């Protein structure tokens, strides 16, 4: 299952030991986090037994309701991730003069709003269309320590936001028959993109995705979030012709299918 490759690739990631200036500021947190992460790997592996019984989510139908249910599950994930991070105090209040905490408080507020909005859109919690919140494990059985190790938190935040952008984009066609729902989904989609751009900057990256690069310091297992982003032919037009492949690919974000996103989300669902 994905989780094996996921843990393996994360713990093998040399970029975790990168000594860029950006990382230096986190060195204290980073070392603690890394030690915790490595020390906890055996527990992570032992947790695989329970992961085999996990209540994985499955792909939602290609309908407007299915798209909303799918979006709600993603928003549950993001909402809980940021709420837990703020609860645990993993975001250093002094980081960048307080910028990081302001940023993630705003993102957390938006994700909470999106959950409420989508539940209402599905007809409320009593509706037959309502889907409950899955049980998340953001440590992936102990392999990660995002709520004690700030760089890990940042890396997962980037992966979730960039996934969110691609996920909503992939649902647009399922909403084409329901104009109001489509508009609302687009209005969430662009907020996810604003988030993604900012989180990437906090990690020292550009706000846009060059080729299919996950970016410095991102665990190899997050590559699934970036595979297919390097497209440079759009409806027959070569976007690389004018300024090269990086610029051409940056100018367009690519969608993920429902199943591709489900596979990513299931890594964090137990």
């Amino acid at each position, binding site marked *: 299952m994905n989780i094996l490759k996921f843990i393996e690739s994360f713990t093998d990631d040399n970029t975790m030991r990168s000594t860029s200036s950006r990382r230096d500021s986190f060195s204290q947190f980073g070392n603690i986090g890394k030690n915790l992460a490595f020390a906890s790997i055996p527990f992570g592996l032992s947790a695989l037994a329970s992961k085999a019984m996990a209540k994985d989510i499955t792909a939602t139908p290609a309908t407007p309701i299915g798209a909303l249910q799918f979006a709600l599950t993603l928003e549950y994930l993001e909402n809980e991730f940021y709420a837990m991070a703020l609860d645990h105090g993993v975001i250093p209040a002094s980081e960048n003069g307080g910028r990081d905490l302001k940023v993630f408080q705003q993102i957390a507020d938006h994700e909470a709003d999106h959950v409420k909005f989508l539940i209402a859109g599905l007809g409320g919690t009593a509706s037959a269309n309502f889907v409950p919140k899955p049980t998340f494990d953001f440590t992936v059985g102990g392999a990660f320590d995002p709520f004690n190790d700030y760089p890990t938190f940042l890396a997962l935040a980037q992966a979730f936001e960039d996934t969110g952008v691609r996920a909503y984009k992939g649902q647009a066609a399922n909403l084409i028959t329901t104009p109001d729902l489509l508009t609302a989904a687009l209005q969430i989609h662009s907020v996810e993109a*604003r988030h993604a751009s900012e989180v990437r900057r906090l990690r020292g990256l550009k706000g846009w995705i060059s080729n299919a690069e996950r970016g410095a310091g991102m665990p190899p297992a997050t590559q699934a979030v970036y595979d297919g982003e390097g497209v440079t032919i759009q*409806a027959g037009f070569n976007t690389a012709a004018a300024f090269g492949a990086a610029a051409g690919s940056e100018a*367009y974000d690519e969608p993920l299918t429902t199943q591709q996103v489900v596979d990513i989300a299931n890594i964090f669902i137990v």
Partner: protein
Amino acid sequence: MLLTDKNFIMKNEVKIQEVNPILDSRRSFLKLSGLTMVTAGLVLAGCSDNDNDDMQDNSLPGIKNGIFDLGSGDFGVLTYAYALEQLEADFYTKVVNSSNFNTTFNDTEREVLTDLYHHEVVHRDFFKAALTLALPDPGTQLLPSLAFNYGSLNFNSRNEVLATAKALEDTGVAAYNGAGKLIKSADYLLLAGKIVSVEARHASAIRSLINPNSKDFAGDDIVSASTGLDAASNPSKILPIAGGFITTKFTAKYLP
């Protein structure tokens, strides 16, 4: 001159001879484009009925009563997007070519603005190519290259350039978000979706340059604090804003 200014300077009227599109050439162009055009189907249906000229006229961009109209349906939305991308591309082209670009902006700002210049030029040229392939008669139906006038905007002023960039990017996001529901073809909807999230990434970046230590990247002034939703506006609300910089006269009578 700020984008919010309501004074429209519309000088250069576009003069293009209106030509009735030929059914056969339209079919071959559609085949070439490789994309399904729902509105094109409607147009073809309209063309088979000679009494129903209105439908044909409204759907297709082109000169109507002496002024270029963006049209309606998918061609209208794509032409509308092409107009907005022309503006963004022109603006950033002027920004990066301004005489004091290297001293007005720091390294980070120059990197962002140069990337945005690249992205927007690619978007503009993409729409030109896509429309040229898809329109039945691009010679008369492709929106011409527009002319722009930025008034008193000082391209050597960091604050003025960034404030204008912020307005342009936020406007672009709201425009695409509002136009999505007007698109009938899933292929074109996806293409618009691929672009709008990059515009939102831009808006976030420019906002961060202006006010880095803040939540402005997705501030309460643009993202509703109660719903977490970004802006979405119809063309009739966007064009008067963008039109403040566009001197080529055109109309959008058949877009909401």
